[in-house]
């Protein structure tokens, strides 16, 4: 079992986002969270991340990139804890061949290899998003928690990247807006509205009614 929430409540100050919330996710599952902004997706992901920090790779909605560093360094950041301070300093000043090759490989998969030396500040919204995704892929813990990782990408790239993410991580939980891409790339969809689960089904069991319901929660 990756996560098991039983009747939990999460609130910010006086404002309760998730009330009496129950959810369990098995290891190896690929789950898409669907819902409008404000439905509780981000709160849920953040909560899950705090439960299993050590085993999770997390892509927050605001991406968390360092503007004045290159794409290389921003991807490398996920390995800071694994390497010594000396190695980290060395790679900051003069990236080693070893890491350059490794990171280039990851960047190729999201079609960002030509931007390896660009500073984040000079990238477009979609390029920034792909950089954050590369950081996550390079980190590659057991569970992926991604908060709308493809919101600034076109349909083709979105599809490619969701394939990549579900392939690279044993378990992946993604917050999304796009119902069709969710059903196509994930095994299970959860529809959220105002902090409540209104639909939770394995994709192969979805009927036309369920699809309409999902379109409705994302609209």
């Amino acid at each position, binding site marked *: 079992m990756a996560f098991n929430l039983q009747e939990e409540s999460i609130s910010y100050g006086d404002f309760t986002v998730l009330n009496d919330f129950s959810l369990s996710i098995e290891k190896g599952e690929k789950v898409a969270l669907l819902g409008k902004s404000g439905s509780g997706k981000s709160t849920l992901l953040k909560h899950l991340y705090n439960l299993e920090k050590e085993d999770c790779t997390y892509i927050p909605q605001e991406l968390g990139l360092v503007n004045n560093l290159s794409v290389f360094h921003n991807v490398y950041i996920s390995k800071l*804890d694994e390497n010594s301070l000396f190695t980290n300093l060395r790679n900051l000043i003069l990236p080693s061949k070893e890491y350059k090759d490794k990171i280039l490989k990851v960047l190729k998969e999201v079609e960002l290899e030509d931007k390896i030396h660009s500073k984040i500040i000079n990238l477009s919204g979609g390029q920034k998003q792909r950089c954050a995704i590369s950081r996550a892929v390079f980190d590659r813990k057991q569970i992926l928690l991604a908060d709308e990782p493809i919101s600034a990408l076109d349909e083709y790239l979105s599809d490619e990247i969701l394939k990549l993410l579900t392939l690279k991580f044993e378990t992946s939980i993604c917050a999304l807006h796009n119902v069709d891409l969710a059903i196509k790339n994930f095994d299970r969809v959860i529809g959220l509205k105002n902090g409540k689960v209104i639909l939770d089904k394995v994709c192969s069991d979805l009927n036309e009614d369920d699809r309409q319901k999902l379109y409705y929660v994302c609209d």
Partner: protein
Amino acid sequence: MKMIDKSCIMFVTKDLRVSFVIFIVGVISFFIADLSISTVDTSLLVEEFFFSIIKLSFSNYSILFEAFLNTISIAIISIFISSILGFFLALFFSNILVRISLSFTRAIHELFWALIFLQIFGLNTLTAILAIIIPYSAILAKVYAEILEEHDTFPQSLRGRSKISYFIYTKIPDALPHLVSYTLYRFECALRSTAILGFVGITTLGYYLSSSFMQGYYNEVWMILISFYIVVASVKWWFNKYTFIPLTIVSFFYLDDFSGFNLDNLIRFITNDIVPYPIRNDLGFDKSLAWFDNIFSNEILPGIFNTIVLTQLSLFLTALLALVLFPLVSKKFFSKPSRLSSHIILVILRSTPEYILAYIFLQLFGPSMLPAALALMLHNGSIIGHLMGNETNLLSLRPDITKKRTEKYFYEVLPRVYKQFLAFLFYRWEIIMRESAILGILGIATLGFFIDSAIADFRLDKMFLLLLVTAFLNIIVDLISKKAREYLKTDSSFSSSRCSLK
């Protein structure tokens, strides 16, 4: 009748309320303050002074050149050491003890620090450098800490265990350009501070300026001032991120003599000189109380009173001047050619330290609060006027607004920048108070006057007590200013120009 009254009250905003307080206190200070002119031949003196600008010359150019090299290299070394110290202190800025002690060192003016170190190490380069380093590292530490906090896009939750690595990767890259540009800006201030250290005897520009003035060589005074403007105005061409390190090394070699450090003197100063006289000599509680009471009622109270009067008067005058000046440099009011001349005047007023302005006015008008208030008004008013001008340039006004300048000023522009204006004023408040205290050295009975005379009588215990009072007064003003800014909610309204205010 009642209805009208109520609807009028609706227009009284927080901004107006605060402005009203500044206004009233300013006017009261105006009537309390001694603003008399005591020189006999004032107009003749003023005329002679201003006309000697056309006879620009200097008797010995190698001395002038040396004074400049001295001033510049002391400033460079001081800013170099301060930036390193400041950075390390910034890392511990969340510690309350660090914050308190830094706000204390910040609150004491560099000239006061110079006066202290003069007693310990004598008249030398070491004294000059320490006098700049101590307040400057405290200021840099505070601003560095703010910059490091502000430029941080990396979420807390993603930060891992290796604290140093994460610090270097996620904080430094975004903050570094801001840290560098603030340090370079501070160098300009350090130049001014070093120049005025000459007034206590260190051989920087202020020393030659005051000696030329006292001998009545006004042409030399102008020569020093104008060369100083050129040096300050050209600073970004010769002092930048590429020349910083080489210039620092050259300065170290130029000022090769850093001796003068004397541990015995330092120990004597701390353990003996500044210990209150009755305690040092074990005269008992009653005598100690009498000692304190005497200083309190004859020096501390009048000193505080005069410092506050001068501060509030100057603050009020600064506000008036800034409100008049800012349209003169604003794209919203004047065309480029007429803005240019106002810009030049503002740059000159901004780059003249208020201490030098006050010194000149004092020679022309004689000792009273007038020279000090004029100096503080001109210097601070031009700084705020300049910043306000920049703020108004950023405003986008709709195309069909009134063409009448006065109406535009009161209806379209001033209301939009008034909050920033008040914020600027509150940021400058603490600085005006620091300066008001220090201008006492020139003979106005603010706290600096009593500190200076305590040193002249070699009563260092009294000096130390008065310095503590000065620092406390500054910290209190800083706290009130912070509360006022919170009350007005001004801090969120601007970000770019805040650095040039501190």
